């Protein structure tokens, strides 16, 4: 090489060869690793269906934790940031309010949700509260401005729910809650249907998803036959699920709540369809699991005292 001594040229040639050999070694190492890891990855995928997507492979079982965290983050957004931490009283927030407010999920909340902060403990705590959200609000009720015309801002919870569903496709609440807010406050029943279908693909025959799907057809599309079909399938699947659960693992409270919801809604549907005998039968089943059987009995009494109306005619309101 012109301008370089013989020794320098020799050094340059040696360095280039070293780099080339190192590159070749890295290439062989990468190829060997890929050849070794490829079959292992396939074996993991076939042995564990939960690891069949990107997040499953990347995060393993920890993705459930992340998914749960993002679901809670959606609830934080629903409260515009006014939310208890692990240092606060969390009994009023045990069931996220975005889920409890759907009516599909049994609420385990106790205590006062508006005062979890309690009175200020000292001047530091009192002063610090001027710089954080300090009032209980819900986004669908206008949020911090209390302006009901802004109730569509509840859409702000959706990104976290979407990420939570992608991380943990087996979490039923995520689909139910997403679909509920899409079809009620955001007037997007089509998107809600897509979310629920996606949930049913990942969790075939889940009664909670079937219940919410039936609500979309009944409340948004007013398709009574389709809603009836789905809810009856929901009741069947719930009974199968309860029968299959081991006695100790049964969550009676949640199962009873869901059965109550399914039967009550079927009762309403049959009333609207003019099938009063079927409606009464559903209300009687609902009464057996409802926390307020007296109110349901009163409603049954009202139905039985009404004059006979032929099936199919509109129900007198």
């Amino acid at each position, binding site marked *: 090489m012109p301008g370089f001594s013989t020794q320098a040229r020799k050094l340059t040639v040696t360095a280039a060869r070293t780099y080339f050999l190192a590159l070749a070694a890295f290439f062989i190492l990468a190829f060997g690793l890929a050849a070794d890891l490829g079959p292992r990855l396939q074996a993991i995928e076939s042995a564990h269906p939960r690891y069949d997507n990107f997040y499953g492979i990347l995060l393993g079982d920890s993705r459930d934790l992340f998914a749960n965290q993002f679901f809670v983050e959606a609830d934080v957004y629903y409260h515009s940031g006014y939310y208890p931490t692990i240092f606060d009283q969390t009994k009023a927030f045990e069931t996220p309010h975005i889920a409890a407010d759907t009516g599909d999920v049994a609420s385990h909340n106790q205590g006062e949700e508006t005062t979890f902060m309690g009175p200020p403990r000292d001047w530091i705590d009192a002063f610090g509260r001027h*710089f*954080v*959200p300090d009032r209980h609000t819900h986004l669908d009720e206008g949020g*911090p401005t209390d302006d009901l015309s802004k109730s569509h801002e509840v859409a*702000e919870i959706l990104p*976290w729910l979407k990420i939570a569903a992608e991380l943990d496709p087996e979490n039923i609440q995520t689909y139910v809650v997403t679909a509920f807010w899409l079809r009620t406050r955001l007037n997007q029943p089509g998107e809600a249907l897509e979310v629920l279908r996606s949930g049913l693909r990942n969790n075939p025959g889940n009664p909670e998803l079937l219940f919410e799907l039936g609500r979309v057809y009944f409340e948004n599309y007013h398709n009574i036959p389709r809603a009836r079909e789905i809810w009856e399938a929901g009741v069947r699947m719930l009974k199968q699920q309860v029968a299959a659960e081991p006695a100790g693992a049964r969550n009676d409270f949640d199962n009873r709540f869901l059965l109550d919801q399914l039967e009550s809604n079927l009762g309403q549907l049959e009333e609207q369809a003019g099938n009063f005998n079927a409606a009464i039968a559903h209300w009687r089943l609902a009464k057996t699991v409802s926390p307020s059987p007296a109110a349901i009995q009163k409603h049954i009494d009202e139905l039985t005292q009404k004059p006979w109306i032929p099936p199919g005619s509109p129900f007198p309101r």
Partner: protein
Amino acid sequence: MRTICALAGVVIKELYRRKDFYVLFVITIIICLVMGSMNVFNDNEIVRYIKDIALLLIWISSLVIAITATARQIPAEKENRTLLPLLAKPLTRTQLILGKFFGCWAVCGLMLVCFYLFFGLLSATREHQWPLLHYLQAASLHWVMLGVVISFTLLGSLVFAAPSSTSTICFVVAAGILLVGRYLDRIALSLSEPWRSIVYAIYYAMPHLEFFDMRNLIIHDWPLVEWKYIGLAVLYGFAYIVVFLAAACLAFRRKPVN
């Protein structure tokens, strides 16, 4: 004062030639744009999650820049053997500390202007509004908080052995205060003596950096904080800046420079 300003000017020139800010700024922009391109049920007005991520990145970036830039100021002068010539000029040690502090703080201010301008533009693309007073409150409190962090990092750089250890310790302390500082009194209640008294003492003595964190109010569009509370928070921050700078001056006065 002119000497302090001249020294601060040198610090500003030195820091804007470094690449830290540009790298963090570009990373923040890229992450926010990628998150913003996510399709959430075809709704183009959903913005709070982007604001949340953007503000988190701005806070992390600003803390990283403030701490790393400050931690190496005086050790670098020693290492380059420029400290003695500096002090040989008509410049006292106190002026040197103040010059370094104001230089770093001014750099952080300029950086915050860029970051909050980007944040405002990003929010406006979806919200179609400019809550300028909200941003002014958030940015000014953020800047005062960085002043407190810079002053205690400057003190740390005179106490700890190397810039790397100073940076790590200061970052852990700042993050710890921001995350659990508010709840230290509750943690103290669950402890037995003498730990309870010690934790209580730390709770009352430490600077409560969480006062300066208005992110939740900005993200969720809460109304403005009353200006008197902003003023009190600024005074609170200034008090800690003065305390830490005085301690740094005392520590530097007793420190050999050769």
